[in-house]
Every structure is written in structure tokens, then in C-alpha cells.
């Protein structure tokens, strides 16, 4: 008797009772939901992990093409065949970058966090030096990836996979950020010429699909340039992506600027601060803080949209995946490839989302 009383006072028990089994209908829905979750997750876990092939199949043979996948040998086997990812891992990460030069890409991947921490965390010790490095990083990175001056030149046509996705996503976002601030300020400027230019730019870029911009950059641009001047394919895509992102980000930032009360600028001006000082010290820090959610929203959108470059012949992560699926040796392994690609995109996008939450919490200065 006493044990049953202590059981009913258990807080987990009462929580379940109040939230999951408060009525007959609620109880039935709870049980059905648990069953559904169990079925889906057990199927998914079995497929991805417990019944899946990685390097070897269920007979212990090394998988070198699709005929060695367990599910293609034994009708009872259903697990994923991750060997397609493992065997073609180099392509997924580096594209057609020469294997013996891949260390250069690895070095860039390894240095990237050091270039970003300075921007992301303002309470970092020695932040100044990290920021110097951030500033130098584009040059170091481009030198390492492209080569020259002692390193073998690896043309951008050989870049691919995650390298292209990250190159376009990270560089596009970082280049678009300052441009978007200028556009947002320009659109609110009192000077009619600057204001008009900014409005036309933003509205034109926003009014056109990214695919059109990519086609324009890829096909149309050379038509307007003198004979023989053919800028690099990847750089052309980067320009398109950067312009596209800057227009969207500018509108997100403009929303933040509009939310700052007029009194803030008046107070700054009455203290003798110039327009640029007021903007930099008073208006922008507040406006950017308000704009964090929409800015990150556009960043996540852009990062995923970089996969559109596959239609102008660049092999980003998705492009490499489609090539893998089309390979006759590995045909019909769509699920494995697309699940893997989704997971990679998800990791980066979820990371951005968590960082924005961290930033919002950190920048909060009131009690509300």
C-alpha cells in the first residue's frame, strides 16, 4: 500500500498522467503515437546502421561495386549500402581534386575554424590576432586551393563536392554581408542617386530566380566581355551567389534598421557623433541584433541553394552525388546518396541555426 502511494507521487508518473493519459482518447493517441515512432525509428535505424553495409558485405567481402551490396545478393537483406559513399568519399569531399594534393584542401578545412572564431566569438582571448588571420584567410585559402608560386595549379574545374559547396556558401555569405549593409544603409539614404541605385539593385536581384542569375553569369556574361576574357566558371557562380545573397540580406538588415527608434540617432547626433560614428556605434549594432533571425534564415537558404550550380555544370556536393548515382557500377543506390547529402547539409544548417540562438541570447541586455 505504502509503495503504491509513493509511486503515484513520483513526478514522472504524474507528468505522464497529466500530459499523456489525461483521458481515454488521449491515452489511445499516445499509444498509437509511440507505436508509430517505434516502427519508423526501428526501420530507419536498421536501414542506416544495424543492417547496413559499410566496407564489407554480410559475407565479409570488400564491396567494390553494387553487385557486392548485401541487398543485391540476398533477398532478405534490406540495409543501406554505404560503400558507395566510402569508395567515392574523395569525390564527395574534394571533387576531382588530385589525390596527392588533397592535403591542401584539408589544410584549408582545418584553418577555416580559426578564421571564423574571431568573427563568431567576441570574448575570445587574442581576438585581434584571430581577426588579422580572418582577413588574410581568403588569400591564404585561395593560394592553397588554386596553387601557384611553388604549388601545382589545380584549376577550379577540378574542384567539386563539399569543397565547392563550402566555397560558394561560406565565401558567398561572408562577401555578401558587408555589401548588404551598404545596400541597406543606401536604401535608407537621403541622397536620391544612392538610394535609387540601391533600390534598383535590390529589387532587380530579388525579382529574378537564382537559376537565372547563374545562367546569366555563366552564359550571358562572356558575351558582354571582350574576346578571350573568360572568367573562371566557379568565380562567375560565386559572383551570382554573392549578389543574390546580398540583396536578400540587405532587406533583412533594413528591417532591423527600421525598428530602431529615431531618438537613438538624435541622441547620438546631439552628442556630436558624425553620421558614420552613429551608424557604426549606435544604429548598426542594434539593427543587426534584431536582424539575426532573418539574416541566418537567408544564410541557411543560400547554403542550400548553392546546390543549384549543378545546372551550370559545377559539381557541388549534390552534383557529385548525382554523378555517383548515374555511375553504372553503383546504380540504384539513390537513397544512400541522398540521405548522406541531406545529412551533410543538415549538419551545416543546424549549426548556423544554433549559433544564431547563442548569439541572440548573448546579446540580450534587458530583463524581458
Amino acid at each position, binding site marked *: 500500500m505504502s509503495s503504491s502511494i509513493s509511486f503515484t507521487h513520483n513526478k514522472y508518473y504524474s507528468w505522464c498522467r497529466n500530459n499523456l493519459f489525461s483521458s481515454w482518447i488521449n491515452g489511445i493517441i499516445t499509444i498509437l503515437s509511440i507505436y508509430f515512432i517505434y516502427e519508423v525509428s526501428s526501420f530507419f535505424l536498421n536501414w542506416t546502421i544495424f543492417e547496413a553495409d559499410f566496407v564489407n558485405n554480410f559475407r565479409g567481402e570488400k564491396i567494390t561495386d553494387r553487385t557486392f551490396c548485401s541487398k543485391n545478393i540476398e533477398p532478405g537483406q534490406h540495409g543501406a549500402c554505404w560503400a558507395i559513399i566510402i569508395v567515392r568519399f574523395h569525390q564527395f569531399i574534394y571533387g576531382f581534386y588530385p589525390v596527392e594534393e588533397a592535403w591542401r584542401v584539408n589544410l584549408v578545412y582545418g584553418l577555416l575554424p580559426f578564421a571564423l572564431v574571431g568573427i563568431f566569438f567576441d570574448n575570445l582571448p587574442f581576438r585581434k590576432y584571430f581577426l588579422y588571420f580572418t582577413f588574410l584567410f581568403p588569400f591564404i585559402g585561395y593560394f592553397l586551393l588554386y596553387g601557384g608560386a611553388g604549388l601545382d595549379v589545380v584549376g577550379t574545374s577540378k574542384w567539386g563536392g563539399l569543397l565547392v559547396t563550402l566555397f560558394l556558401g561560406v565565401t558567398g555569405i561572408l562577401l555578401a554581408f558587408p555589401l548588404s549593409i551598404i545596400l541597406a544603409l543606401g536604401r535608407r539614404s537621403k541622397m536620391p542617386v544612392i538610394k535609387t541605385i540601391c533600390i534598383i539593385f535590390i529589387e532587380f536581384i530579388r525579382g529574378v530566380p537564382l537559376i537565372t542569375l547563374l545562367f546569366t553569369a555563366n552564359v550571358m556574361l562572356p558575351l558582354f566581355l571582350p574576346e578571350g576574357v573568360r572568367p573562371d566558371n566557379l568565380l562567375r557562380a560565386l559572383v551570382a551567389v554573392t549578389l543574390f545573397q546580398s540583396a536578400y540580406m540587405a532587406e533583412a538588415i533594413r528591417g532591423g534598421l527600421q525598428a530602431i527608434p529615431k531618438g537613438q540617432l538624435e541622441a547620438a*547626433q546631439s552628442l556630436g557623433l558624425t553620421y558614420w560614428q552613429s551608424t557604426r556605434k549606435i544604429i548598426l549594432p*542594434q539593427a543587426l541584433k534584431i536582424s539575426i533571425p532573418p539574416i541566418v534564415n537567408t544564410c541557411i537558404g543560400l547554403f542550400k541553394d548553392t546546390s543549384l550550380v549543378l545546372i551550370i555544370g559545377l559539381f557541388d556536393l549534390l552534383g557529385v552525388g548525382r554523378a555517383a548515382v548515374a555511375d553504372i557500377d553503383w546504380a540504384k543506390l539513390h537513397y544512400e546518396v541522398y540521405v548522406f547529402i541531406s545529412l551533410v547539409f543538415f549538419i551545416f544548417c543546424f549549426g548556423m541555426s544554433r549559433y544564431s540562438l547563442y548569439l541572440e541570447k548573448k*546579446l540580450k541586455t534587458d530583463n524581458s
Partner: protein
Amino acid sequence: MTEQVIQLEKVNKWYDDFHVLKDIDLSVDKGQKIVICGPSGSGKSTMIRCINRLEAHQEGKIVVHGTELTNDLKNIDLIRKNVGMVFQQFNLFPHLSVLDNISLAPIWVKKMPKKEAEEIAMSYLEKVKIPEQAEKFPGQLSGGQQQRVAIARSLAMNPDIMLFDEPTSALDPEMIKEVLDVMIQLAEEGMTMLVVTHEMGFAKTVADQMIFMDEGRIVEQATPDEFFNNPKSDRTKLFLSQILNH
């Protein structure tokens, strides 16, 4: 021989078709305290906002410390450095701590070293009697404390003229006194002050001159004694009877 620090001559201003300031003439001597009152929409805030060019006038002449206010940005910057302003809504910078709010302008406008600017900021916080709030953010302070920080922020630029635009109108009644006490102290130290307010007790205590404005004009200008006991215009009498007997 008193020194004139502000002169307004035939100042006119329009918002589109709305004639907000009509032929304003005013001269302020060094150390003078002028209290401006009048019904809302009478142009009193607009007038003092013209003195540091938060609003531009279209006709007439405004001279501050011998410098005429025109579109010349250099002159505007020069005048703003010497003219402090306190707003109805405080307008503190919510993303900066109280100390940073006060030391910002000395560091960026006067190019003062950070340490020196913070020492000055602390001394003004002590003057407004809230040094213990230095590390907090404006959102964590009461309205009265925020307004006192705003006064300290203006004083840190060491201005010789202070403009107050309804400094107590947004405050709860029990916080009005702590702000007025700081302003009275400032007046006693000889600061030149132009105050837009309806705190008539404060006006009687500190004002050298009272100004009553209505519909964009200065209707009456007199010493407090004359203004309260023997107002000349009927409009002033009506206003005073409404504001004093409610």
C-alpha cells in the same frame, strides 16, 4: 556685461504646409535658465531642437556661441559638442552599459583615452548619484535612473548649454523629483539651461525667464514673478489656470 550665447532672429519653420515656428526672436545670456511651456503642438520642442539642428529652420537666423547654424556640417558638429540635450524618452543606447553610454562620446568625439573617459563618466555618475549602476544596462534601470544617466551622458561632453525636452513627462510621479533635483543642482552651478517642462514648481525655483508659446509663436516672455502673478495675455492666463488648478 552679460554674454549672449544663443540668439534667434525671426526664425520660421514649416513642416510641409504646417507653419510650426512663426517669427521666433529669443536671446539667451550665459548662465540664464529659461523655462518654456505651452500647449502641445505649440512648437516649444521644435524650437529647442532647432538650436542643436536636430531640426532645420527655413527662415531667419540662429547663432550659438557666435556660430551661425547653416547647412555647413562643420558648424553643426562644433555646436553639438557644446550643446547637450536631454530627451523625453531618455534615448539611452540599450546595447551599451551605463558606463559605455556616458564614455562613448568623449572617446569618439573628443578622442579621449578610454580610461580617462571612464573616469569622467564615473564622476558624472556620482554627480547624478547612481555610481553603483555603472555596469548595468539601461533596460535594467528605472525611468528616473535612466533619465539621470542621460543627463550624465550629456554632461560628460562638458557642454556649456543644456537643452531639456520635457525631461520628466515620461516618468512616474515618484521619480520626477530625483530628476528635478539633479537639474536644480545643475542650475545652481551656473549652467545655461533651456527647459521645456510643465513642472511649474521647478520653474518657480530655477527660472530667470518664463516663455509661453502657442501656435508657433512666443506669446509671453517674463520673469517667473510676473508670469505667474500678473500674466499679460489672456491665452497665458487660460493656460495657467488649466495647468495650476487641475
